[in-house]
């Protein structure tokens, strides 16, 4: 951060914790940035003359006579079209060796959209993955996380989704990414030749954890520039929001705040909502869609982080390793896109929602058959056909390595129905059966 001529400098710290320093000073404004011993910090509390600063890079080695210089403004990001194709750290500084960005300096974490000015999301975002497009269709302006265990390939899936999605800009906000994952994203974006529409803000595990707190606001400030100023369709990827929440709890703990559930700060819901609610369909046509990752601890969704997230986001996507086929699939039972009915059958073929319901119901019947089998009961002919169907359904549609158009997904589902079931067993409306049931199989 460049120093400025009018800055006020102090050299006497009153208190130091692992994440914060406190000092006596005057004329400091809330949320203002400061530099403590060369590290960026932000005002989080003032009490009389005593000001507490959250030091993003941690306080290791900071002496009580450290130099503190106030910068007079909250965190900002310079926005312009030059952002495209670039990689930045949590402070918005280039980390790809390229030049500094020139553009308008804007405060990050700005105000929210007037709810009355929003438009109802109505544009489909196809991803090629049938577990998403067919069963949990994404809509522009939606916010939805992957709930995944740390060992699952969520970053790969997100990169795939991002590169296939028909959007104008992709903004990656990486929090606590391992260096390997960071390079993975970088290589896949470069390899796809899509670098010019991608902006990345990255905090890796090599960086201090508190820095992560800036990442979502940085990414969303860039997203708002493209969506509001340029009327573009913007997709924001945030991974991993669990590590973001962990950083929140570190700071609140250092400030002696009383923790609520799972040692998370009491404001967790509002903190997460402020980020996710930036997803919006704007009246002028631009939109911000957020796909996030929330890693779970052994699938536990009652933990405060996934729980609060579930109440904020418009659905959630679960990854699951399918033991039958050895594929990673999008779990059709627990995954949900709350906005899918806004596009299914409206922006997609008329048989979409019926196909979705029928295929998932038959897959559920297969699960029941499997339970019967495990409990040593005899299987009926129907049960056996369900099991056969489930295997093919997982490989040809649910698996995350599928990449086909929505019409192909629907046709594939009709093929599977015709191969394994009678028309009546599918329970689909007669009108649709007459129109779409594959002829050669009759």
């Amino acid at each position: 951060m460049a120093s400025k001529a009018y800055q006020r400098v102090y050299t006497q710290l009153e208190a130091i914790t692992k994440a914060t320093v406190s000092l006596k000073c005057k004329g400091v404004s809330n949320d203002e940035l400061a530099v403590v011993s060369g590290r960026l910090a932000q005002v989080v509390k003032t009490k009389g003359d005593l000001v507490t600063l959250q030091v993003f890079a941690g306080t290791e080695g900071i002496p009580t006579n450290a130099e503190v210089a106030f910068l007079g403004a909250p965190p900002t990001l310079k926005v312009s079209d030059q952002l495209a194709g670039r990689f930045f750290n949590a402070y918005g500084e280039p980390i790809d060796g390229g030049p500094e960005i020139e553009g308008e300096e804007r405060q990050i974490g700005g105000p929210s959209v007037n709810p009355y000015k929003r438009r109802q999301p109505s544009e489909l975002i196809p991803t090629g993955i049938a577990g998403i497009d067919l069963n949990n269709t994404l809509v522009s302006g939606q916010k939805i996380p992957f709930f995944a265990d740390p060992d699952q390939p969520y970053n790969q899936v997100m990169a795939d989704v991002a590169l296939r999605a028909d959007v104008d800009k992709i903004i990656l906000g990486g929090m606590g990414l391992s260096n390997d994952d960071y390079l993975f994203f970088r290589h896949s974006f470069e390899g796809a030749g899509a670098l010019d529409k991608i902006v990345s803000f990255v905090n890796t595990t090599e960086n201090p954890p508190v820095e992560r707190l800036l990442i979502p606001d940085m990414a969303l400030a860039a997203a708002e520039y493209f969506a509001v100023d340029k009327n573009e369709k913007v997709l924001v990827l945030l991974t991993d929001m669990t590590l973001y929440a962990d950083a929140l709890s570190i700071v609140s703990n250092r400030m002696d705040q009383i923790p609520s559930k799972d040692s998370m700060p009491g404001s967790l819901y509002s903190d997460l909502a402020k980020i996710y609610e930036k997803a919006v369909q704007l009246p002028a046509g631009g939109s911000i869609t957020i796909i996030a990752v929330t890693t779970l601890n052994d699938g536990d969704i009652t933990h405060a982080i996934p729980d609060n997230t579930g109440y904020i986001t418009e659905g959630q996507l679960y990854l699951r390793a399918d033991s039958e086929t050895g594929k990673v699939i999008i779990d059709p039972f627990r995954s949900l896109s709350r906005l899918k009915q806004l596009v299914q059958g409206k922006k997609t073929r008329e048989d979409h929602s019926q196909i979705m319901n029928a295929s998932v119901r038959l897959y559920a019947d297969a699960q029941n058959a499997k339970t019967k089998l495990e409990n040593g009961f005899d299987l009926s002919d129907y049960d056996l056909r369900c099991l056969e169907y489930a295997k093919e359904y997982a490989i040809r549609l649910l698996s995350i390595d599928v990449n086909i158009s929505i019409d192909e997904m629907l046709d594939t589902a009709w093929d599977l129905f015709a191969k394994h079931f009678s028309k009546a067993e599918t329970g689909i409306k007669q009108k649709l059966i007459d129109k779409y049931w594959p002829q050669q199989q009759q």
Partner: protein
Amino acid sequence: MNSTGKVTGIVSNLVTVQTFGPVAENELCYINLDGTKLLAEVIKVNGDKASVQVFESTRGLKNGNEVEFLGKMLEVTLGPGLLSSVYDGLQNDLTTMEDVFLKRGEYTDPLDRKKLWEFSPTAKAGDKVEAADWLGEVKEGWLPHKIMVPFSFKGSYTVKSIAASGSYNVDTVIATLTNEDGDDVDVTMTQKWPVKVAIKGYKEKPRPQKIMETGLRIFDTFNPIAEGGTGFIPGPFGCGKTVLQHAIAKQGEADVIVMAACGERANEVVEIFTEFPELIDPHTGRHLMERTTIICNTSNMPVAAREASVYTAMTICEYYRAMGLRCLLLADSTSRWAQALREMSNRMEELPGADAFPVDLSSIISNFYARAGMVVLNNGKTGAVTFLGTVSPAGGNLKEPVTESTKKAARCFYALEQARADQKRYPAVNPIDSYSKYLEYPEIVDYLNKTIEEGWVEKVLKAKNLVRRGKEVKEQINILGDDGVPMSYHEIYWKSELIDFVLLQQDAFDAIDALCPLSRQKFMLNTVLDICDRNFAFEDYQECSNYFKGIINILRQMNFTVDGSEEYNNYLNELNKLLENNGK
């Protein structure tokens, strides 16, 4: 002259102010930040230091910023034009703001001051009146909107003069009253009232006398909510809380509906903006939006205003109740309100109660629920505020402070359940855990038995008990296997499934099934209970399940068809044939 002060401390939206002069608890103040005035409310006073919660972002605020106390508490503006408005938690009109983004310190007028209303007087010069008495009325849409003696007026007054019939704006003086000391006071069509104080001005608050119809079987038949009653809907995310609330907002038998979107998703409110103007009120045939006010403080809007939003909504309901109208308040979600309280209590470093919530959470919630109710006005007419809140329990666990506190305060409990939602049994209200205390009120039992049919409540309890029995035998069947239990177990189980599929489940997206009138609910309950009363003779459990699946399918199809249509009668004939063949 109001007191002033200056800022001495800031943690997020909690600001400490050094005060010069007296301040009151809950008094409002403006904090001046470079010309932008940020509204805040006093929540604690200690010596000459006041803690205030700011209703806006405090970014850029400095120690030494000047504070101007306003000498009043947070108020709402009441008057014609409230209906079909969209407000934020502090009653700013969101529709008249120009920017796409909300601007800090931008406050808009809740009422259109220029609009003319067709006023007709109902009081005349010389009448003795007191607070909340009606002076005249204007037509707000199709509702008679009473112009009342302001609630803040104490003692009795004599009407000195009253405006003749004609068109006036809300600020026109429509009456002059003389108080007991002989002083004259002017009354316009608008008045203000502090949101945290309940509006009184009625004669008495009796026990509820009747139920509020919602067209939902799980409500009206099984767990009816009284007009002027209270209820709450707890449920994990993804269980259909919002769909249920919207269904009630669309179908609830009330004159006025106030929806408080309190800390929830903005896109859900957008759905209301988009859908409601198109929808028709099934009871009056008018546009739904005409009877609806939306208070919208979504999850990303300032936390302190979230707390205010539920009070703003309640005060608007109480205002319409004083006109002798039936109001329904829907608040989604009261957990977000409680969390706002928690955030403030936490910043004030108060000793926390369970789950870090403030220790007085329970009493705050009961006080709020107590503001609902049916009232008898001074002129003998009645009005009601029915309140339904949702609760979002952390982790779906109902043993948490907000659910437990609300359970003590609300009389109806609609427990949404993950397991039912997973099985797509919507509405996913657990039929065994849920209850309506009103079914124990002799007044309500009398009302139901008189308006629906003699012995109705007994039938409802019987159906509930069958569901409970069904659950018990299902557990036995799961343990012992299909062949390990007597045939009668299967029969009991399938009878409970019949009640579940035909009565408890209801398709909110089917045009006909979504709204089930009481007459139809009566027919369906009687039909289903008649089947349950029969003894069947089945060879094996397969035959039993197939037989009941057939019956269930027919009755469900009936739910989807127009009452009395040819299709409907065909299904009825089919049902009777099926019953003749096996029923004994």
